[in-house]
């Protein structure tokens, strides 16, 4: 399997670390909704077909990638930086004048 990293180009599977299901939504840090946290930690969509998932280019640029891959054929239809898809927490914190 070859994943085309938007930064480094096409690279072999062995350079990437799997970070799992990209469909999960992390509840707000302040949330005390136990159901939502349970679902985030334990529940998986686990489809046979197109799957949104997170990979890290651990042996390359180390960016996290949002990959859409078919779990039956391993065909990859989409790769993007995961940061662009998710909430930009660090940017929001910077605006508030906090570190990180």
């Amino acid at each position: 399997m070859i994943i085309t990293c938007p930064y480094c180009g096409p690279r072999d599977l062995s350079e990437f670390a799997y970070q799992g299901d990209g469909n999960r939504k992390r509840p707000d840090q302040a949330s005390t909704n136990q159901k939502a946290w349970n679902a985030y930690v334990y529940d998986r969509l686990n489809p046979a077909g197109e799957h949104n998932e997170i990979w890290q280019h651990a042996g390359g640029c180390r960016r996290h990638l949002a990959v859409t891959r078919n779990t039956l054929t391993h065909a990859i239809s989409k790769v993007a930086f995961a940061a662009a898809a998710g909430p930009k927490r660090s940017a929001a914190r910077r605006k508030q004048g906090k570190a990180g």
Partner: protein
Amino acid sequence: MREYSALSLIRNAFNGNRDWQPVWRKPDPKPAYDVIIVGGGGHGLSTAYYLAKEHGITNVAIVEKGWLGSGNVGRNTTAVRSNYLLPENNRFYEHSMDLWEDLSHELNYNVMFSQRGCLNLAHTPAQLDDYARRGNALRHEGIDSELMTPSEIAREVPVLDMSRTARFPIVGGLMQRSAGTARHDAVAWGYARGADRLGVDIIENCEVTGFLRDGDRITGVQTSRGEIRAAKVAVAVAGHTGPVMKLAGIDRLPIESQVLQAFVTESLKPFLDTVLTFGMGHFYVAQSDKGGLIYGGALDGYNSYAQRGNLPLVEEVMSEMLALFPSLASVRVLRSWGGVTDMSMDGSPIITTGPLPGMYLNCGWCYGGFKATPASGWCFAHTIARDEPHPLNAAFTLDRFYRGAVIDDKGQGATPNLH
């Protein structure tokens, strides 16, 4: 159907093997049953057998989308052991071991269960301490387990390089002598024959395409061979739990399907008479009665339903084998293959009523389902027949993840690719 015996073997040897009967019938599905079991793998077949034998429920259908033994029961590396750490797992797997020990007699079918032992090698003092802890946990439950010194290992497994100059020197090991291997296909066929003889209908090439419902309650299945109704529908489809449960409207479960690969080499003269696990990586090996080495390693590590594996993992497994046995470098690999495993979020199985009324679920076997085949079916049959779990599977619920009652033998957390 006739009993198998030494006499029947001799008779057939002299008459050109003309007298053998088909091992199970090929019935057409009836419109309704008391229980439908989805999935004709090892666990589905043993569930049907114990439903009929232990609970007298014989009006049972097993629906299987392919042929018997086409899934994980025919793809595993055949090891049978009960050396876990946590009491829930230890008790369950030891019950399985008890059933294994009498299985060939009980089924009148030779499953070639061979208690050749399973030795976990330790390569650091810390790892040996950890094995001692596990050994103590096992002995506390009355399960056999033995901590071995390097000289004892050298005597029992002479092929190992026990010197300090080995790539990963061996400092000791944990042995379970009652562990071993079984012929995996024979387990499927033996349970199929046993269930069939008690009246269970095994319906092959019959894919479930949907569930029949009355409100929330499941009342049967739609299949490629028509509708079949039953008051109780049990699902035991291992790696395909996700897609099958989706047909019932359950789209999220604490399960990820991933691929585990296995390998077999050309036949070698007998040199390894125990199941070995390597401690400096994820690698296990046994030598079959035909002489081939059957071995495997870690999961490919990401969601997959492909039933075939990737090359980086092949390279890793081969390198682990050569780290342990440099002398095998010129041995040729005959075949490699992959199976879809149902990785649960804590590495332990789920055998439970629900999650919908009229439904029963058996899944989450990770890559340890084969050894569990007898106890899984035994406990699942009890759960289906009585509508409540047996004490041996009472902890293996679906809601344990949400109650903080996970059974995480490895202490790995919700990382299914690492269990």
